[in-house]
């Protein structure tokens, strides 16, 4: 009755570099339905290698975008960097439940906490629901990792930089959360590496958040 989706007709439209080590891969949507926050298993056609990437674009767009950071000894991130417009991709999905229950409700404040390319599902969400009452805290090393910062309202995007002094806060996300400067939200969604999420969850719980207010998606 069912097998994992692997529609062959996903073709590359564009590769847009957002800095030296990160790029946005855009490809044809092929009729795929998805919700902001979901991810795909993606690879070059015929390679047999797939990796998980959260969808970066909104379901309202005619194409699909994913935000990919090059991994030095990685396989798929390197292969995908070299694709050309018209090349076919192998795409499975969409999968996952992250953010799928987060459709904005009137008066509900959402706090999004991301490290690195963990910003991707939030980008998809915010592009889909620009009216949402959100704050996006983005943990990065340098300010050049503030991917597409101009896509967010200036007072809603907040960069925590662990190196350099050009962030809105100079230090890690966890340092910022510990400083107590962030106003309380109704729900908190965290996406990024597991260490950041684990430490941030501890801080948020200590600040009074209940487990049913906290939602996570781990990147590795």
């Amino acid at each position: 009755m069912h097998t994992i989706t692997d529609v062959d007709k996903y073709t590359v439209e564009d590769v847009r570099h957002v800095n030296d080590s990160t790029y946005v891969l855009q490809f044809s949507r092929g009729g795929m339905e998805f919700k902001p926050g979901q991810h795909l298993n993606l690879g070059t056609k015929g390679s047999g290698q797939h990796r998980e990437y959260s969808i970066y674009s909104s379901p309202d767009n005619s194409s699909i975008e994913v935000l990919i950071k090059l991994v030095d000894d990685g396989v798929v991130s390197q292969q995908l960097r070299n694709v050309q417009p018209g090349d076919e991709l192998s795409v499975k999905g969409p999968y996952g439940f992250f953010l799928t229950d987060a459709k904005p409700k009137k008066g509900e404040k959402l706090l999004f906490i991301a490290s690195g390319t963990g910003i991707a599902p939030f980008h998809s969400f915010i592009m889909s629901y620009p009216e949402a009452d959100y704050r996006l805290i983005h943990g990065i090393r340098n300010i050049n990792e503030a991917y597409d910062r101009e896509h967010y309202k200036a007072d809603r995007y907040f960069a925590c930089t662990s190196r350099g002094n050009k962030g809105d806060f100079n230090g890690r996300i966890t340092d910022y959360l510990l400083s107590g400067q962030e106003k309380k939200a109704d729900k908190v969604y965290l996406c990024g590496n597991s260490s950041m999420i684990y430490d941030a969850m501890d801080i948020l719980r200590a600040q009074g958040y209940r487990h049913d207010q906290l939602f996570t998606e781990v990147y590795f």
Partner: protein
Amino acid sequence: MKVLKTVAFKTLGCRLNQFETDALVTGFHNAGYHVVEGDEKADVTVINTCTVTNQSDQKSRHTINHAAAKNRDGLVVVTGCMADNYKEKLEGQEQITYVVDNDRKSQIVELVNGHFTGEIIHPDKMMGDRFGFDTVQKSLHTRTSVKIQDGCDNFCTFCIIPSVRGRAVSRPVKDVLDNVRRVVDNGFKEVVITGVNIGRYDDEGLTFENVVEQVLELPGDFRVRISSLEPDGFSEDFHQLFSHPKLAPHLHLCLQSGSGEILLKMRRMYSANYFMETVERFRKAIPDFNFTTDVIVGFPGETDDDFQKTVDFIREAKFSHVHTFRFSRRTGTRADRMKEQVSGKVMAERSEVIRKISEENRHAYMHSMQGKEQRVLIEKVAGGMASGYGEHYMPVAFAVEDPTTNRFEQVRLTGTTPSADPVMQGTLI
């Protein structure tokens, strides 16, 4: 006189596989085959495989080779998760007649019938149907499962199952209720609600709890047990359902690790705190509620401290049984690519520690149940002694005069047999 063709089954792995074999047994029986024991020579041997760990692969391979060697003139049908995971390799083995994936497992009777009547088709040409199994009539067990769901979308980083069982799909609630009615009409007294990730059941907005609630309202003298469940698959009110007399107060709730960091790396969708709060909520409502669980030892990056958190958690949650798995690298999973893989020696040591705690917990739980009543479903009577399971899923033995099986008896628990695999003793009330 027409000589019936014989069919034998070998089943590996989970309760869902066991259910699907039971349904195939029924299907072959209804189609006029004589079902023989799994080790007997047969015209048809069906091997329902598992691929969840490397060890499962080895067992499945061994079982296939053994069955094929014994039945050189017979049909050998390989199905189950290994058939999905290693389809091409298995199809290349001459000793195997057919390789049938999970999608088409329910069609094996038609495939074999076609073979014997000259209508040979490739299994891939058959229509897939995850819920197309016969209603179990002639089971190898006194309890039967009802499959409500298949597949999983969780993609835990260690797990190959989403790749072999496919996307989550739910059986319409009407079909589930019809199936339960039929198995109860067929005489089964215990129905186990099963699937790959049943907490994700979703039939046009109806949740897992909704379907359980509707099953409980069906008429008849039967009880309902829930098979393995993920901690994120139900609401905070779920425990209230267990006040229903038909619902057995036992859950196999999969922990996997007591370390929050490891749970995140596993991409489990709950925290250790959340799990413990769930256990406490249930025990507040039903103090002797029986929890059992699964734990993986040696997940990549699991430190001594992480492991100790798991040990502490198991003691505090008082699981009466812990099914311990040593982490197994499965190609294509995220955990296979993780650094900090844990050595086999450390995994073996950790596994042994948990085995001992599990035994202690089991003895303690059984001790706490002494003096209480259980409604035992008798599975076997031998030498005047009946054995079966009470509603809390503890094995119970007691003296009876009536040798009839598949009936309930009210029993008072009086003690426990002194063995590594203890059984509770009781007396008829």
